[in-house]
């Protein structure tokens, strides 16, 4: 009875304290905002921004509103995060496998990579890449030209921009169709193997399909795509597809940094599989590629996936470092808006809402993946 009373008392106390503090903060904020002549609310979102954003996925003019500018920033954040997650995973898995290689040189090099990138702040890596690596590229007039249509200079990586015709969509449909056919064939192969013991050579069939079907469609539905090349006009290139140095530096830094952490997760996953199981598989006459696919990988994933979830959410959050090198992501654009109209509370609130939403989505997907690979323990 006394315990229940105490609990209730503590509940009331905590609730009361929180309410009191919130109220005080609210009052203070009101007073301060008035004193400094700062507006409240989201009306500023429909005001013309005048902000220059030189890297956007959708067309943007400085005459667009603050709201649209912020939206462009959010899109950039999502773009960098998505690309980053895929690239970091690919590189991280590669380096993780290199870490456990039986080749001493390969595993040591991978270890050096991981140890360097994990112990140096990401911001430092970003600065180094942006200021030292990219700035040392030549001026546009003396661009590096490794292949036709590709120019590399200190204003960015210029690639030919694809201009799609109607045929492009046919080819895209053909590619999707090939994937569908590969999926169906792998199902058929599995059923055939269950019944007769011999499956179909899915790899070969799949590869040939992936090459043949789109190629055939390409030939039949020409013209498919044209390329707009970047052309040097005066001191700069115009046209084409351009990857700005800010974007490139951010991607390189983020991907290399996160890949180091993912590599460690992959390593600990692979090493968590008992060596004895590999021996048992060998003793049964199982080929090592099959052992990797069916024995090691499923068990390694169970260890790696929870840890990698953290790394993915970290990558999304680290994309905010774009503000330090001038890539217009959500924090960058928001920071500029705060600098102009001092409405920090609204902008910071928006930041928190967007990041929390992205986190929820990433965590939900990873939790679903995690649940799918669980082992039944005793």
């Amino acid at each position, binding site marked *: 009875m006394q315990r229940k009373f105490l609990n209730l008392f503590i509940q*009331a106390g905590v609730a009361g304290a929180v309410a009191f503090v919130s109220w005080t903060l609210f009052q203070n904020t009101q007073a301060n905002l008035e004193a400094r002549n700062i507006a409240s609310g989201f009306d500023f979102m429909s005001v013309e921004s005048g902000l220059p954003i030189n890297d956007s996925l959708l067309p943007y003019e400085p005459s667009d509103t603050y709201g649209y500018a912020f939206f462009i920033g959010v899109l950039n954040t999502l773009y960098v995060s998505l690309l980053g997650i895929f690239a970091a995973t690919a590189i991280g898995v590669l380096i993780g496998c290199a870490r456990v290689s039986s080749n001493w040189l*390969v595993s040591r090099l991978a270890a050096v990579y991981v140890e360097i990138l994990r112990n*140096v702040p990401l911001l430092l890596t970003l600065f180094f890449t942006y200021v030292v690596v990219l*700035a040392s590229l030549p001026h546009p007039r003396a661009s590096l030209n490794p292949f036709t249509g590709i120019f590399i200079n200190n204003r960015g990586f210029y690639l030919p921009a694809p201009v799609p015709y109607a045929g492009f969509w046919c080819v895209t449909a053909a590619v999707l169709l090939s994937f569908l056919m590969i999926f169906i064939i792998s199902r058929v192969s599995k059923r055939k193997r269950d019944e007769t013991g011999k499956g179909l050579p899915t790899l070969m069939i799949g590869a040939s399909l992936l090459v043949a079907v789109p190629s055939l469609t390409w030939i039949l539905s020409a013209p498919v795509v044209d390329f707009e090349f970047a052309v040097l006009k005066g001191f700069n290139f115009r046209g084409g597809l351009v990857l700005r140095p800010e974007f490139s530096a951010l991607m390189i830094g983020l991907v290399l940094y996160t890949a180091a952490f993912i590599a460690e997760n992959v390593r600990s996953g692979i090493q968590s599989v008992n060596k004895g199981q590999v021996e048992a598989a060998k003793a049964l006459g199982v080929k090592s590629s099959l052992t990797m696919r069916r024995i090691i990988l499923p068990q390694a994933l169970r260890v790696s996936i929870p840890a990698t979830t953290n790394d993915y959410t970290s990558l999304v959050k680290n994309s905010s470092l774009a*503000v330090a090198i001038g890539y217009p992501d959500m924090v960058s654009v928001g920071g500029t808006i*705060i600098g102009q109209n001092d409405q920090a*509370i609204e902008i910071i609130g928006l930041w928190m809402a967007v990041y*929390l939403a992205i986190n929820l989505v990433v965590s939900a997907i990873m939790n679903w993946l995690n649940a799918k690979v669980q082992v039944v323990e005793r």
Partner: protein
Amino acid sequence: MQKPAAREKFKPLASEPAPIGLIGPIGWVRANLFNGWFNSFLTIICVAFLGVIIPPFCSWMFFDAVWFGDSETCRAASGACWTFIGHKLQVFLIGPYPTSEIWRPAAAAVLLAALILATTLRLGNKYFLVILWLLYPCAAYFLINGGWFLPRVDQSRWGGLMLSIGLALVGILVSVPLGILLALGRRSRIIAVKSLCVGIIEPIRGVPLITILFMASVMMPLFLPEHLQINNMLRVQIGIILFSSAYMAEVVRGGLQAVPRGQIEAATALGLNYWKMNYLVVIPQALRNVLPSLIGRCIALFKDTSLVIIVGLLDFLGAAKAAAQDSNWLGYDAEAYVFCALIYWVICFGMSRYGRSIEARTTVHH
């Protein structure tokens, strides 16, 4: 045994030395670098890669580098300009701190070095060392800030490695206890307390440190009444503490979950109240469980302090960036960042090595 007669004496074979291709350097090379055609191929590629990267890097870093001289000598040479670092060393280490008072941060650094030595060599009583660590920030603050008989140095003049270490140290020392409290609160059965802790931990963990720093730097002045304004560095420190506490709380929560239920039951049976039980029984075990993760968080915190440049503080990375903008010494960004990276690497790697040695020492072997 019926037969008492002696058995035949067995003549064992002598051990032969291993064949030459098996041991020694040749054997090692065969086993580790060239076992199989794929591995041999990889070895060749790696050696080629190293051959392309290492010589130019070494000549830039050491052989063609300028170690003494001035700006002119540097411009003439093709290698790294380490005189630039030497020239700017004070800025790197203590930022814009006045040169006349340089003995004060130096004294604080010596104290810190002594403390680190004592801790890694495990001299003295454990609890005594903990007390020293808790007292150190106060002593360092007094030395660097001034007051009483020492002339004051305003916090806008604090910077460099001193600021990074200071922010990280205070951050760690305050966020660990705070994190423990938050973790305990999250496990509480009182709904209000649990919701409050979850409401603090989850949003903080879900947003980047930059947003927290912006909140601390830009929003906090709006929350506080006019007469209670605090300077930027203190606001940023509070932001770092809050951010780190949320992550420490999650790490400690994992450790608390790993403490067997039986411990709590036994402690309750012995008559310990909630706080005594946690302080004496549960928390020490929880911390021991997750010591490696805790140290990992400390390393992450130290690296995260590099972000304060975005809210206007001149920490180690900030000082490096600023030093490279000096009009007399333009174009040496690479040297500045490489030096910065080296120091960060040494400190972080050192911490992780220390963490691993603790882990090896405290692992409970079943």
